[in-house]
């Protein structure tokens, strides 16, 4: 491969161009760079690691076959859009179920194990995990659109990118997140309850 600079410095669009010109290592860099985020989104949306694996694989299948369809704005936004479309296709006719006790990794880890709390005193850790479990459940109870905005934000996408992924105006993406925060605050009780408005 003719990548001299550190691969971190090579932009996604440039890597895709190299791949289209026959450089398969350029694709390897893209896959390594973006698959973990795709996997996390798919895992949260489907609730099953086996499903998340399938989703990631299918997203890259579509990228490889339609690489000419990328129009050069944000590659990350583009693949998240493909991922979203695929998740919508899959979800037709099936209802995802998420259980905190269900395994998500190869080593028998569960969603509960992934909740923060490592390194804290047992009581504090237990409390933290309990709270995080509540947040995870509350996020899961959001509508799919709101959940997506919440997760994409956590992946570091800005609202402009999220709006493109969801193919909605920026204001709609903002309104979804605004509504999601409101619902999460309500679900999570007094600590997050809306305070009296300053006028």
């Amino acid at each position: 491969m003719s990548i001299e600079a550190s691969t971190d410095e090579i932009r996604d669009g440039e890597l895709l161009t190299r791949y289209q010109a026959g450089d398969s290592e350029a694709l390897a860099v893209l896959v390594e760079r973006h698959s973990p985020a795709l996997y996390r989104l798919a895992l949260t949306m489907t609730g099953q690691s086996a499903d998340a694996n399938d989703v990631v694989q299918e997203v890259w299948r579509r990228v490889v076959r339609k690489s000419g369809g990328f129009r050069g704005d944000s590659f990350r936004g583009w693949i998240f859009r493909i991922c979203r479309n695929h998740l919508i296709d899959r979800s037709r006719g099936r209802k995802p179920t998420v259980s905190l006790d269900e395994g998500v990794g190869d080593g028998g880890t569960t969603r509960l194990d992934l909740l923060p709390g490592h390194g804290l005193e047992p009581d504090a850790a237990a409390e933290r995990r309990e709270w995080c479990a509540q947040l995870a459940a509350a996020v899961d109870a959001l509508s799919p659109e709101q959940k997506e905005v919440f997760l994409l934000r956590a992946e570091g996408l800005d609202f402009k990118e999220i709006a493109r992924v969801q193919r909605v105006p920026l204001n709609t993406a903002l309104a979804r997140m605004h509504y999601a925060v409101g619902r999460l605050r309500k679900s999570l009780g007094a600590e997050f309850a809306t305070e009296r408005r300053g006028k």
Partner: protein
Amino acid sequence: MNCEQEEKRILLNEAGELSPREAAALAAHLAACAGCRSFRDALRRFDTVARTQQAAVTFPAFLGARVLADAEQYRQARRMRHQRAVRLLARAAAIVMLLGAAGGAGVYGHWQRQANRTAEVAGVLAVLIDEEGTGSPVVPGDHHHGLAHDLLQLEGLDEDLSSADLLSLADEKA
């Protein structure tokens, strides 16, 4: 003041999407509004936990390799289809040349414009790929239908190989 609008600005500000002027106006509002500060603090806490949870998810190592193997398989299959198209077109183009400008090129152009039905293309191929090379009208047989089907499939299934590609390949070989 409209706190709902300010809360949407908080969302934009946390993502770094607010202009310095708007950010300053928001800061002034936050200084005076406990409700919006509470919204911002809740948002930050949600973000922190969500990111921590995401960081704890391990991406399965085998998956990247599986994706790349799949891509390589597709690339090789595509290359084979491409080579087959080149062979077919080279043959067709050579016959067009043999037939001469009078009829052959017209037929070939007609195929490019009208290649939307297997039967039609099979008819044209029967002329173009006339085994005896006589150039006289030939009734299309199964062989021609098969080739026509393959050609149409190539055009229909492979987005990367458009009619324009096929034409330029034919030009290259002619």
